[in-house]
C-alpha cells in the first residue's frame, strides 16, 4: 500500500513537475514554448517595451530567478548592464554561469560586426560583436536547436516530447522561411538608416544596405551635427527609409524624415514590442512589412 501511494505521488509529481524556464527576452521565450509546450513554465524577464540593454533590475525579478530551473540569455554583452547582480543575488545554484541550467545562446551564433579594436571611445560597443541576432528569422533554427538540446539535458524525462515538438516546429519554420525569403526578394534593393544597429543580421541576410545610424556612436544620444551629416548623406544616396525602434526617442527620426521626405518605419526589436508582433511569425512579418512597405 505504502509503495503504491509513494509511486502514485511520484507519478503525480513527475506529471506536474514542469520546469521553470526564465529567458531574458521574449523571442527566446516564444521558442521555448514551441519546443517545451506543456512541460515548461516560461518567464520572460525583460519586457520588450524597454531597451534590452537597460532592463530595470526590479527586485521582483529575483523571485523569478530564484525558482528557475533554466536561464536562457541572449549573451554577447546585451545583459551586462542588468543581469549579473540579479543573478548573484537570486541565490539559485542551478542557473549560475557554468551550471547546467544556464544557456547563453550567443555561443551558437556566428556573430557579425565583431570590432577589431575595442574602446569606450567608440561608444558602448560590444566586444563580442553585434548581439541583436534574433531579429533575423534564419537564426531561429539555431536558437531552437540549442534550446532543444538544453531542455533534453535538464529534463530527460520529456526528451522524446521535446524532440517531437522540435521536429514539428522546424518543419513549420522551414516552410515559413521559404515563403518569407521569396517575399523578401522584392526588398533587396532597399536602402535604410537605423537608430541603433538592431537589425544588421536581418539586413545582411536580405542584402539590404544600411548606410548609417541616428545615434552617432552606440549608446550615445544624437547630436545636431551628426543628424545634419546623416540628412545630407541620405539625400545624396537617395535613402527613403528610417528604421526606428519602439524605445528610443522618436523626435530625431521624425526630424530626419521631415527634411529628407523619407518614411519612418517602426520595427519591433523583440517579440511583442509592437501590437502585431506577439507570435514568432507575426514578429518577423512585421519587421519585413515595415522595411519593405
Amino acid at each position: 500500500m505504502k509503495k503504491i501511494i509513494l509511486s502514485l505521488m511520484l507519478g503525480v509529481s513527475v506529471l506536474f513537475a514542469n520546469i521553470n524556464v526564465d529567458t531574458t527576452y521574449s523571442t527566446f521565450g516564444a521558442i521555448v514554448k514551441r519546443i517545451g509546450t506543456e512541460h515548461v513554465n516560461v518567464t520572460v524577464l525583460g519586457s520588450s517595451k524597454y531597451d534590452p540593454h537597460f532592463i530595470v533590475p526590479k527586485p521582483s525579478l529575483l523571485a523569478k530567478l530564484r525558482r528557475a530551473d533554466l536561464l536562457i540569455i541572449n549573451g554577447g554583452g546585451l545583459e551586462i548592464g542588468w543581469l549579473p547582480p540579479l543573478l548573484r543575488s537570486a541565490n539559485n545554484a542551478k542557473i549560475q554561469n557554468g551550471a547546467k541550467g544556464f544557456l547563453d545562446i550567443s555561443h551558437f551564433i556566428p556573430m557579425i560586426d565583431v570590432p577589431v579594436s575595442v574602446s569606450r571611445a567608440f561608444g558602448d560597443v560590444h566586444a563580442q560583436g553585434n548581439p541583436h541576432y534574433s531579429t533575423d528569422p534564419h537564426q531561429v533554427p539555431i536558437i531552437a536547436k540549442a534550446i532543444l538540446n538544453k531542455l533534453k539535458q535538464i529534463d530527460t524525462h520529456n526528451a522524446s516530447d521535446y524532440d517531437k515538438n522540435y521536429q514539428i516546429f522546424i518543419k513549420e519554420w522551414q516552410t515559413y522561411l521559404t515563403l518569407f525569403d521569396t517575399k523578401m526578394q522584392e526588398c533587396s534593393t532597399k536602402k535604410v538608416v537605423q537608430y541603433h544597429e538592431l537589425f544588421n543580421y536581418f539586413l545582411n541576410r536580405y542584402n539590404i544596405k544600411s548606410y548609417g545610424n541616428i545615434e552617432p556612436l552606440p549608446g550615445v544620444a544624437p547630436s545636431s551635427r551628426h543628424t545634419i551629416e546623416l540628412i545630407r548623406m541620405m539625400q545624396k544616396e537617395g535613402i527613403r527609409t528610417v528604421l526606428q525602434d519602439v524605445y528610443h526617442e522618436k523626435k530625431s527620426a521624425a526630424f530626419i524624415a521631415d527634411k529628407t521626405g523619407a518614411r519612418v518605419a517602426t520595427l519591433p526589436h523583440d517579440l511583442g514590442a509592437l501590437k502585431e508582433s506577439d507570435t514568432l511569425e507575426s514578429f518577423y512579418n512585421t519587421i519585413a512589412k515595415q522595411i519593405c512597405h
Partner: protein
Amino acid sequence: MTKIIPLSMLFTLSLMADATLESIQKELETQKQKTATLESQVKALSSASTNQSASFSQNAYLPDIAFILDMSAVTRDVNNSAYNKYAIPGFMDSTDTEILFNPNRGFNLNYAEVALHSTVNPYFDAFAVFHLQNNVFEIEEAYVITRALPMGLRVKAGKFRSNFGRLNKKHHHSWHFDSQALIYEALFGPDSLKDPGLQLQWIAPTDTYLMLGLEVMQGNNAQSFGYSENANLLVTYLKSSIDIGENISMLGGVSYAKGKNASANQTDIYGIDFTLRNQFDSYSSLIWQSEYLQREKHLDTSTDKQDGFYSELIYEYNNNYSGGVRYDSITKNETDLSAYSGVDTDNLNRYTVMFEYKPFEMSRLRLSYTYDRSKIISDERRSINEVMLSLNIAAGAHSAHDY
C-alpha cells in the same frame, strides 16, 4: 574533389558494364558514403586551428576591473578649518569629525577606487573594493559569496557593507546625492555600517520577492557600537518587493541591528525603508525613496533615544539628464546635550537639491545645492549654504545599473 568522384564513378560503371543494376546501385551508395566521410574530414580539419596563445598566458582569467574616480569643486560659507571640526549635536562631537567626502571648499579629489570581481571557482565569487584617498589606503570591502548553495541560500564572508536598510549597502558613487544621508552619518559615521563578518541570506521560493538576512559582524562602528573585546554586532532584516503592472515597482524592508557599544552596553537600531519607482520608459523614471532609523543606545546611567529620516525624490528625464531633492531630519534627540548649553540644537535638518548630467554611461556631472541646518560650527549653530559641482567616472568593467 567534386570532379574526381563522378569520374571515378563513371570509370567504375564502364568496368562493370554487364553488371546488374542492383550492384551498380550498391556501388553508388558506397561511393556516396565515402564522399560524405571525406567531406566531413576536410571540414573538421579546416575549421580546427592550432593553439597560437602564448605559453603559460593567464590573461583570460584576469578579474573584471573597474576604476572609479570622484572629485568636486565646492563653494561654502564656512572656512575649511572651522568646517573640518563640525559637530552634529548628540551624535558626533567636533573631536570625532571625520569627513570622507568633499571636506574643502575649493577642489577635492575624494577618491580613486579600484573594484575587482572574479569568479574564483564553481563555488565562490570574490569581490574587492580598494578605496584610495590622499595618504589613505582602505580595503573598503573584500569578500566572497557562494554560488552553489541550495534552497535559496547565500553566504557572504569577509569585510563588507551591511545590507541593513536601503542605503547602507550602496557605495558613494551610486548614491543620488554627494553627501551621505544625515541619519546614516549620525548613527554610523561616514564609513556606514561595514565590518568583517558573515552574512546569510535566504530568498523564499514564492512568487513575491521575500528575502531574509542575518549578519554577524565585528561591530567596529564607533558611532553606535565599537565594543572591541569580541564580535558584538548582529544585524537582521526582511525585504520584500511588489510590482504594480510593468512600470511601477516597490521595495520595502525592516531592519534591526543589535550590538555592544564602547561602554559595553547594548545599542539597538531599528530601520524601515521604502522605495517606489515608476518607470515611464527605458530611460525615464520617478523614484521616491525614504528611510527612517531609530537608535536606543544604552549607557552606564542613561539611555540615548534618537531617530531621524530622509526622503528623496529623483526624476530621471532621460539617460542624460536627471534631478532630485532630498530632505533630511533628526526627529528625536534625547541625549546628554549639556556640552551645547546656550546653543540651539533643535530641528537638525538639511535640504539638498541636485541636477545631474551624464554625457554617457560611466560618467556623471552633478551640480547640487545644500542648505544644511544640522551642524554646530565653532560652538555655534550655523545654517550652511553649499554649492558643489562633482564629477564621477567609472571606467573599465561595466558596472550594472542600480535599482
